């Protein structure tokens, strides 16, 4: 990976320097503190966490049709070495013709319609060490082709290089009891991270309905976990199988209502007990928005979504049979204050999470966010050799936190 990163860096820096005129430069710096309310469960974990992150962007238009964007990211974490990491989020040249769009380089692509989780979204690896919401992604090297249809679009992606998921290290919180050994990933395919993955997505809009069908074939982004025990130690290694995934997205809009559905069928992914188990999973529900409520300037949005994973207890995540209720309250004041609350309730145990988010900006360049995450009612994680999906979540139950983040944008 490092060789590729170096090559992209050199190429990008050369490009930027070669024609410094006409480039747009932007950036943002974040200071982040996470305060954990409970004592850590596992040896070596810290009780709080401080980090600084930087994301820069250089953008240039060579012509109306041809553009290039370079976005490096780096986080320095003062407790967890694994969370100190850099990534090239984007280094992407895009040529937009009248009937075709061709892109080459490292880019970020989002698929999906639901809010509670992003089932169908598979092009980019999750930068899981950044946040738990699956919304921070690692840059994905790709060649992409977009063809517009009447009221629709076909996207085709070739992905020659695979990115491994990031995990917290020994000192990090929000990790399993045994640290995932990211230095020794296991691949099903002998080409390892160089396997050529590909994907296609077809999207169509019909008046108030939007539908999308997608297919992915290649190295699965979600690792199954391989467990190996020597005399004294147990090691957990990420295992990246070859998978095939069929995805379907639907959205129906009617007045203030947005009905949403995402479903996948995946072949080739080993489950929690490491046996290959083809499965389907669904997320669906609605979003309802109210504007200028009670004669104020406030807006209020409500979401209700259900999550179902056919593997149930053998799913790779604790969100396998859950109901998610959420509300977003937008105050429409000078500081653009927004408050988000999410309740994630397991359907057959008392396990639940509460997420609270508060955000505002100060002046034109500063943004402040507070985020609180609470785990409640989860079963204990032990014994570790008999895990189920809920007890996966149980491994994090001491990790309630309050995160304070201040961003400066320039």
């Amino acid at each position, binding site marked *: 990976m490092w060789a590729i990163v170096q090559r992209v860096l050199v190429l990008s820096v050369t490009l930027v320097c070669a024609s410094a005129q006409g480039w*747009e430069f*932007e950036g*943002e710096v974040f200071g982040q503190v996470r305060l954990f309310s409970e004592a850590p469960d596992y040896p070596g974990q810290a009780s709080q966490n401080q980090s600084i992150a930087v994301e820069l962007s250089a*953008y240039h*238009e060579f012509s109306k049709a041809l*553009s290039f964007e370079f976005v490096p990211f780096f986080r320095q974490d003062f407790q967890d070495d694994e969370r100190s990491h850099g990534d090239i989020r984007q280094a992407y040249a*895009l040529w*937009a013709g*009248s009937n075709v*769009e061709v892109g080459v380089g490292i880019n*970020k*692509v*989002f698929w*999906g*319609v639901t809010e509670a989780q992003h089932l169908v979204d598979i092009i980019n690896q999750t930068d899981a060490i950044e946040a738990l919401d699956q*919304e921070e992604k690692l840059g994905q090297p790709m060649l992409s082709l*977009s063809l*517009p249809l009447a009221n629709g*679009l076909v996207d085709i992606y070739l992905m020659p290089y695979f990115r491994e998921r990031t995990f917290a290290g020994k000192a990090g919180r929000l990790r399993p009891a045994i640290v995932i050994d990211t230095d020794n990933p296991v691949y099903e395919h002998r080409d390892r991270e160089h396997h050529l993955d590909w994907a296609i997505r077809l999207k169509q*809009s019909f008046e108030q309905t*939007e539908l999308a069908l997608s297919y992915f074939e290649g190295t699965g982004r979600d690792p199954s976990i391989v467990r190996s025990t020597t005399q004294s130690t147990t090691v957990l290694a990420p295992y990246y199988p070859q998978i095939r995934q069929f995805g379907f997205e639907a*959205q129906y*809009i*009617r*007045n*203030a*209502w*947005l009905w949403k559905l995402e479903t996948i069928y995946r072949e080739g992914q080993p489950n929690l007990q490491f046996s290959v188990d083809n499965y389907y999973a669904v997320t669906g529900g609605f*979003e*309802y*928005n109210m*504007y*200028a409520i009670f*004669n104020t*300037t406030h*807006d209020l949005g409500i979401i209700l979504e259900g999550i179902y994973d056919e593997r149930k207890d053998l799913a790779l995540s604790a969100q396998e049979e859950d109901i998610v209720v959420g509300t977003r309250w937008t*105050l*429409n*004041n*000078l*500081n*653009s204050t927004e408050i988000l609350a999410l309740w994630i309730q397991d359907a057959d145990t008392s396990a639940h999470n509460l997420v609270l988010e508060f955000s505002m*900006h100060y*002046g*034109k*360049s*500063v*943004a402040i966010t507070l985020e609180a995450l609470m785990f409640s009612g989860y079963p204990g994680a032990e014994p570790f050799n008999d895990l189920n999906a809920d007890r996966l979540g149980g491994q994090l139950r001491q990790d309630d936190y309050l995160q304070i983040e201040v*961003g400066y*944008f*320039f």
Partner: protein
Amino acid sequence: MTRAHLRFPSRHKNSTMFSRLIVCFLLALPLLASGETAEQQGRAIFEEIDRRDLGFADFSSRQEMVLRNQSGQESRRVMDNTVLEGDTDGDKVLIVFREPKHIRGTALLTHAHRVGNDDQWLYLPALGRVKRISGASRAGSFVGSEFAYEDLSPQEVDDYTYQYLGDDALGDNDCYKVVRTPTDPDSGYTRQIVWVDKSEYRIHKIEFYDRKQALIKVLTVSGYKKYLDKYWRPGHLSMINQLDGKMTEMIASEYVFRQGLSDEDFNENSLRRVR
């Protein structure tokens, strides 16, 4: 109620054949033929506004909003606004936010429809996600300003029913005064009183009345300039909330017309590559 408005009915009542002819002659302005009802007169004024704006094809501008609350605190929003003229349906509008910087690159695409709810999509650059927005946002505040989405969205003649109230002088401008009633039940207003100047058919002032029939906001539009020798665009808009004294000033500049834009620049796919 203006004097001009009161004068109209009395003139008809007392008119002889001769004076009626004179009145007809005086009113032979194309829109106000004496046989028309106040509804028709009102609608005709807005059809004329619409007609005079035909053929601009596309234009863009930078808009700077200054939001001010009761205690004088200020906050700024800056955005680039691009409009594509609709031929068979309503206009398409793309708004890209520049400030505050934490939402820079966020883009809102609206397809206005002559009939029914507009379609709206939001592009969130941090996620690379295009998110559909439900259609009932019209009455909502636009990024915390005193402008509602519906105040800024493209206006179609059929969005309202009209009633001509009479003439009124507004500063140096001799204006028609028309009350219009939104046809959309999701609108935050029961009616708006609009001042339109007679010489160029430009809107100079709007009074907005809420669901309780109370005057809630007053918009003043000024700094009009003519582009391409035909299309008038304002340089300054001021929206003052009559209930709490909050206000939003909007300065519009850098108008550029006819960049050769097309539908392909206003769809979900182009939204993904907005800068």
